[in-house]
């Protein structure tokens, strides 16, 4: 067992957890933050992407204990006073989601892209999102949403 202290969506949290607890399990099963999804076991699909100290990572293959002291933002932490983040607004406006399962990871990943690159091209967006699989949308409206968000952020 390890004691892990994290700041999650602005809240400080300390828990005793088994050493092998992944961050996704910690979020979903221990904190009931089920917005972070798990779609594969091989760190390929990207449904589980969250931000650790501002950078996007795949939470299904990160050990929570390794991240002791980090600041974590999940999809639930993006809204402020009930208002959605511009990326979330853009996904809604341009129909960048269908079943919604890959969406939290997609949104978290896209926000990280815009942190590094203010006005990415279509190709840069498509390359960046290569680690997030969506089976519903064919990606076109996702790319459009990221561009829309870039123009608003």
């Amino acid at each position, binding site marked *: 067992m390890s004691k892990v202290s994290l700041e999650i969506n602005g809240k400080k949290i300390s828990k005793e957890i088994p050493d092998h607890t992944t961050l996704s399990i910690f979020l*979903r099963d221990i904190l009931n*933050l*089920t*917005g*972070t*999804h*798990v*779609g*594969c*076991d*091989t760190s*390929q*699909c990207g*449904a589980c992407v969250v931000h650790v100290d501002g950078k996007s990572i795949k939470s299904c293959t990160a050990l929570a204990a390794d991240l002791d002291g980090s600041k974590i933002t*999940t*999809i*639930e932490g*993006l*809204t402020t006073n009930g208002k*959605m983040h511009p990326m*979330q607004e853009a*996904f*809604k*406006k341009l*129909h960048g*989601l*269908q*079943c*919604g*399962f*890959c*969406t*939290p990871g997609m*949104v978290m990943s896209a926000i990280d892209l815009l942190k590094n690159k203010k006005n990415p091209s*279509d*190709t840069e*967006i*498509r*390359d960046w*999102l*290569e680690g*997030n*699989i*969506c*089976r*519903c*949308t*064919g*990606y*076109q*409206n*996702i*790319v459009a949403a990221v561009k829309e968000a870039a123009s608003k952020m």
Partner: protein
Amino acid sequence: MASLVGSRVERKEDKKLLTGRGKYTADVNFIHQTYAYFVRSPHARAEIKKVDISKASKAPGVVAVLTGADIANDKIGGLIAGWRIKSEDGSDMKVPAHPPLANESVNYVGDHVAVVIAESLDEARSAADLVKVDYKILKAVVKTKDAMDSDQIYKDIPKNMCFDWLLGDRAKVKEAFDKADKIIKIDIINNRLIPNAMEPRAANADYNPSTEEITLYTTSQNPHLARIIISAFNGVAPENKLRVIAPDVGGGFGSKIYPYAEEVVCSWAAKKIERPVKWVADRTESFLSDCHGRDHVTHAELAVKNDGTFLGFKNETIANIGAYASVFGTVTPTYLFGPCATGVYKMPAAYTNVKAVYTNTAPVDAYRGAGRPEATYTIETLVEKAARELGMDPAEIRMKNFPTEFPFQQTLVHSVDSGDYNAGLKKAMEMGEYESFEKRKKESESRGKLRGIGFCTYFEACGIAPSPVVMMLGCGIGLWESAEVRFNPTGNVTVFTGSHSHGQGHDTTFAQIAADQLGIPIENIEIAHGDTDKGPFGYGTYGSRSLTVGGTAIVKACDKIVAKGKRVAAKMLEVNEDEVDFNNGEFVVAKSNKKKTIGEVAFACYLPGTYGEVKSPLPDGEEPGLKETSFFDPANFSFPAGSHICEVEVDQDTGETKVVKYTAVDDFGTIINPLIVEGQVHGGLAQGIGQALYENCHYDDSGQLVTASYMDYTMPRADNFTDFNLGFTCTPATSNPLGTKGCGEAGAIAAPPAVMNAVIDAIGKEISMPATAEKVWAACNKKNKNSEAA
């Protein structure tokens, strides 16, 4: 109030999904819940000699270990094939037993042998390793083509053949072929795919000992069907003691239409141990045990005159249906395939013969398009080859054979009510700049790349389905759809539908329809689905049916609401019923200022007494309340159609093929929400292009699934595509009042032949799907070879 039908209304369901507040089955937890882990067969084919659970039962945290013997003792029924197909000789299809936990034999890698139920998932998984199964390994039957000549898997099923089905007239086809100037022949493979909804399948079953009711949360496109199967066929609980809830579901694409062994086992086990049992597939389990799609080996021929007129068509297909006949596993390669295989053309004579074979692979069932992609790939590959061999333009040969009068009696089954195929193809050629293709080809060549162009014109049968027709063809159920429209006393509305939304946006589209019909704001309408305890029985969502069948049920229920509202409003306004009109949410009396809003009428319906100055609004004999139900059974299928043109660029040095330009012009009839429809087309195209260029399910000769992770099975990703160019034409369907035809599968149906025809055009050689870099490179770099083996 402006009409919402036809508007790009942003989706009502998005906010919860975008903020992490969606509730998927894996997010559902119960107090005292246990965790199930399935022991699966590591062998493709084996006899089970013994299952020893003694060690596993004693492992830490284990609550129960259940096996096929327990299933048999409790008389839990097997999984079913939902559609009875008859062979050409009149005999019934042959179906092996499919117990939810195997008892005597296992028949594919991933087949269910036992379930370990423990206090935690870790403990269940660890204990599963201690279940000792003594197998006698047998030689697996794997390859579709060879299945009939391989070892016999089931004692009573010779040649491993489920059925040998014929649709059409062989003698007429022979006559037509005798008259032909030229016969075009192809041998193609429709590659096996794995559906890969991003949400892995899951179930959480809770048993309430006091009411003796099971509540099953599950990842289903069709909770009502799950309930009736688990009750009536598996016998886990009577229907009135089983509630099935499919909450938010993360995609289905056909793979979640019907219940699997896991839902049956979790429900049965929850009742047995009187505790909730939760199971969530990991991705490898999904690859192994979700039903797969496609997997046809086809020889087809087209008889043509020298001027390009089609005379006849033959189609000899072997369809691999996997180890067991799944619910829609037998209809997919027959009635969903055969009738559409003559394509969108006048075809004087045709037949389709399908031999469905069992193999030691996962069951094959409906996957986006289900039968129609296979049909379209067959005919469109032939038609393009015919154009090449006759030296005709691919558009010209198609237009020459399009029907121009509707209704069009299609060769094998369907009477197509409406369409304008010439208009669609012309529009696609304009939008796709067909005239200037040669210029773009030269430009690509200047960069050392090969460029090719490919066409696909398709039609499909959706709006599944007229129940009397499908039942006559062997379907074990009706395929109508239901709706209940319930005005709440305060004037807002809940619409219950028997269909299910798992990405299609019903919460929005259906609300648009109801808002228009009832003349109330869309914000005041809630769409309820996915819970068998809420709303009427329905048949779920697949086959691009929900809007056409389920949406129409909503229209009809709204009509009944308005009819009752008129009677009540007439009483309230003290006029005759025939003097009342209903417009934009108001009951009005012509040439007067008398009117009542539908909200006022609804409120009055719930307060039918007389008090003070308010008189009872209800006419004599009228029941209080305002709630109406409708069951809609369509008179015909609906027939979306379209023209897709694809351009690819091939790098001869690496074999890499990229779709560089893709134009899709579809006729879906009336479009309710263009924003959502475009999204459906985009998604279908990605799956269709995925099939053509990237995706392939591969079993090795021993029946091991080699492509069982995202590192081995190529899922299309954002960087595989460029933007698609979409256009629409509209000939409204005549079989439903909305005029809709269905849009969910079009992309997956049209894209594979459009892409492959473009690849063949680019490299000048026939090649099988998926046209991976390796295959294309080999084809480009092999000299003097016209075709390439699969």
